[in-house]
């Protein structure tokens, strides 16, 4: 069973539709994580600077 599609049918419409949905979702997740992690790392670096200071 494919997530988000119990009624999975092997036809192009499904592939295209679900493919797009998943691409979008994955992209969004990647972007969020990217920003979150980068932000966290920035913060850690800054923080150490601060402590050293």
């Amino acid at each position, binding site marked *: *069973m494919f997530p988000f599609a*119990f009624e999975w049918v092997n036809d192009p419409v499904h592939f295209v539709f679900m493919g797009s949905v998943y691409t979008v979702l994955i992209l969004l997740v990647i972007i969020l994580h990217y920003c979150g992690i980068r932000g966290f790392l920035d913060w*850690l670096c800054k*923080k*150490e600077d*601060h*402590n050293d200071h």
Partner: protein
Amino acid sequence: MSTTEEKEQTAGEQGGEHGPEEATHEPVKPGAWRFLIPIVAFGAGFVSLLVLGWVIFPHLLYGEKQQPVDFSHVVHQEAVDEGCESCHFFREDGSFSGIPKLENCVQCHEEPMGESSEEAKFIAEYVEPGKEIPWHVYARQPQCAFFSHAAHVKMAELECAKCHGPVGDSDHARPYQYNRLTKYSRDIWGWNIAGFKKKTADRMKMDDCAECHEESKGHKDACFVCHK
């Protein structure tokens, strides 16, 4: 836009407000380890929710009941000639009798047949007053489902155990667990709280029906094959 001075200032201003109540966590470590605080807090929250979800939750969700009579399939299997169908038979109209009615039991059990105390209890409590036994049905399917035993047993020639598991080999009636919210038997979702299954008989959700239909027929079948 913001400056470090501002940050420290505000922290200093309002720091005292919440402090003491929240001191249950590990003591504040100064210096380099300080950055671990959020990470440890994260871990603690993470683990406690995991425990809650995987260990405690099932106990909250499911209630348990004992069967009215401790029934032994083993003993009965030995006593009857036609296997499961001796008691779980098809009616003339093609419907399946399911769990036998008292009248079926009485055919043999008018008088005690053995020494067992459970049988004595059964006869005293149900046979003599002529009361139907309020069995809890492990495999009770929801109102919306039409399960055809005839199609599966007579046409597809499935073994009972395929879906019901080795019930026939049980010597005792296992406790019946039910979902407090849905009133379903726990056997439907399966005893694994995550819904994982190893054997076909471990779960009885629609997905499991569909899985088997897909394997044997090549498609999941139309809705109305099993729904009503």
